[in-house]
């Protein structure tokens, strides 16, 4: 996993609650057996006016001029500003893969769905939960000011606006550590192989019917 470093990211506002994973990346793109290449189909049904299919050259597809990410001022955005319950729906990790592939490193919203939250951190994407009023304010500022950037300081757990206003956010220590160091959590878990084996043998003794190879 890549390390998360402090950044000044251009912000794009997606003003819509309950953005589900089908909206983030529609199911036809889930047929890929790779982890990359989902960026061009991020928000496919909102972004284009036609129906997309995997493996297609998207450059000739008609863009939806009303969709926020199609506006030139948001090109190159790295921070997505969203509304409550972002990422609800399925467990597809293709959703964070698509956000990442598109170039987003951070999503800010009043709340996130649990599985999506987990999946995003595993892919080096930082999700920041701020209260509704703050998110409202950031929406207003983003829309008002072209080129609006937020300073994202994970180490200090702060989001800093261009005017210097800072908002603190919570993130659990383990996730923060993994993100900052770019750690592979499988490797970390395997360091505890001994503890896992001990647990497993006790568990097998107490519940032998859970082990079919006995």
């Amino acid at each position, binding site marked *: 996993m890549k390390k998360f470093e402090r950044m000044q990211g251009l912000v794009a506002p997606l003003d*819509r*609650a*309950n953005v*589900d994973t*089908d*909206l983030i990346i*529609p*199911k*036809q793109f*889930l*047929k*890929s*057996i*790779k*982890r990359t290449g989902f960026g061009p189909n991020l928000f496919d*049904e909102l972004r284009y006016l036609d*129906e997309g299919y*995997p493996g297609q050259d998207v450059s000739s597809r008609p863009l939806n001029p009303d969709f926020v990410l199609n506006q030139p001022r948001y090109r190159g955005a790295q921070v997505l500003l969203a*509304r*409550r*319950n972002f990422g*609800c*729906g*399925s*467990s*597809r*990790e293709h959703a*964070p893969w698509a956000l990442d592939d598109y170039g987003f490193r951070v999503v800010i919203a009043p*709340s*996130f*769905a*649990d*599985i999506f939250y*987990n*999946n995003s951190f*595993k*892919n080096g994407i930082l999700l920041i939960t701020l209260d509704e009023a703050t998110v409202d304010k950031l929406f207003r500022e983003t829309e008002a000011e072209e080129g609006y950037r937020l300073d994202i300081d994970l180490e200090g757990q702060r989001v800093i606006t261009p005017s210097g206003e800072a908002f603190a956010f919570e993130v*659990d*220590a*383990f996730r923060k*550590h993994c993100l900052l160091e770019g750690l592979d*959590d*499988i490797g970390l*878990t*395997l360091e*505890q*192989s001994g*503890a*896992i084996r001990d*647990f*497993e043998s006790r*568990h097998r003794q*107490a*519940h*032998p*019917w*859970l*082990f*079919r*190879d006995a």
Partner: protein
Amino acid sequence: MAGQTLYDKLWAQHLVTQRDDGSALIYIDRHLLHEVTSPQAFEGLRLAGRKPWRRDANLATPDHNVPTTLKERSAGNAGILDDVSRIQVETLDANCESFDIEEFRINDERQGIVHVVGPEQGATLPGMTVVCGDSHTATHGAFAALSHGIGTSEVEHVLATQCLIQQKMKNMQVRVEGKLGLGVTAKDIVLAVIGRIGTAGGTGYAIEFAGSAIRDLSMEGRMTICNMAIEAGARVGLVAVDDTTIEYLRGRPYAPTAEQWPVAVEAWRDLVSDADAVFDKVVELDAAAIEPQVTWGTSPEMVVNVSANVPDPAAVEDETVARGMSRALDYMGLTAGQKITDIQLDKVFIGSCTNSRIEDLREAAKVVKGRKVADNIELAMVVPGSGLVKRLAEAEGLDKIFIEAGFEWREPGCSMCLAMNADKLGAGERCASTSNRNFEGRQGYGGRTHLVSPAMAAAAAVEGHFVDVRQYDYDRADAMSA
């Protein structure tokens, strides 16, 4: 000290290590796999030179991409006409073979939707932790198994370590007391719950469904409810163990052997919340007051009673909510104030991991028996959840009832629940569906989904529009039996 909830007990029984930062390593007993969320995980293992930690904990079956017509199915994988879909299924086969993981392949009679297959085989047992790269893994919680959906990175993590890094959730109890009205089913209970608490109401919680109305349900009904816990935002749905649970499992292929059985049953009896357990949140519903439910919008929380009208965004104060409602009405092609029972349909889909088990098919068959699908319905289809459900239904003659009424009787798989295979809605087409998600485009680009129970879907197929199944004349005699 207060007693423990069922969730607390399951958590404690699988805790390998607790870390200072609040995260914990949790041991996983059962890992179910399907073709969509596993290829990148196997690839990750391969690249890192790792092997599955415990092969017998894993069980795989393809379900999302498989065709459901007999002609295509009889050709096995070669019958999957879409190359990308076929490669995904072949990749699962190849990965299971090279990593020595048990798989029910496309034409194995035990193949089916992974959440139907696990319980049916007894591969889901009380007291287990069960995970799968699929959000509807919550289904297995009906067996008092701590079950939840995971992403692909976690699939790889479980394969490699037999563990997951988790944070403990909070406890919520949803208590449904009293008797359901005739024709009202588990699906209506869970839709009513989602209507009440919203699609984010359960975020961060493990929900235990309790109360006499839940105890009265069969295992099929309990699975329907836990299945949709995720639609209320909760990764975990649970129901305590009772005789219904134990009787369902007796004699299933992966259930404990005759020698182990009494010991296992004794251990399972403890899988209930203590009487003095404290929940962080309690939600109560009166079963008798629940009507058949119909969703009108593009989120499962956009749901109303069948006797109601399509709601009006102008009557809602919260601006974000009102805007979402207007957008949904627009997408769904509905007007505020329209009667739900006036909504005309184009297609009917009975299937998915929510409602494709034998009891669901029996319930739907009772409604359609001796009737015909309405002329305005272009396609009405029944897709059994597994090959074994299909065989049982055929032994009971349900297939004939459906076929005579004008339904298509299909081969098992996810089918039009998410339309990754050839079964999908066209743009603007309106469908009564027994599945779990009505998101934009979910059942096909531009498709319009209304979530309902199997009985409601069946009645809608016959009438061509929604009807209140309670006022429908059919033999409910043992409709609600376990």
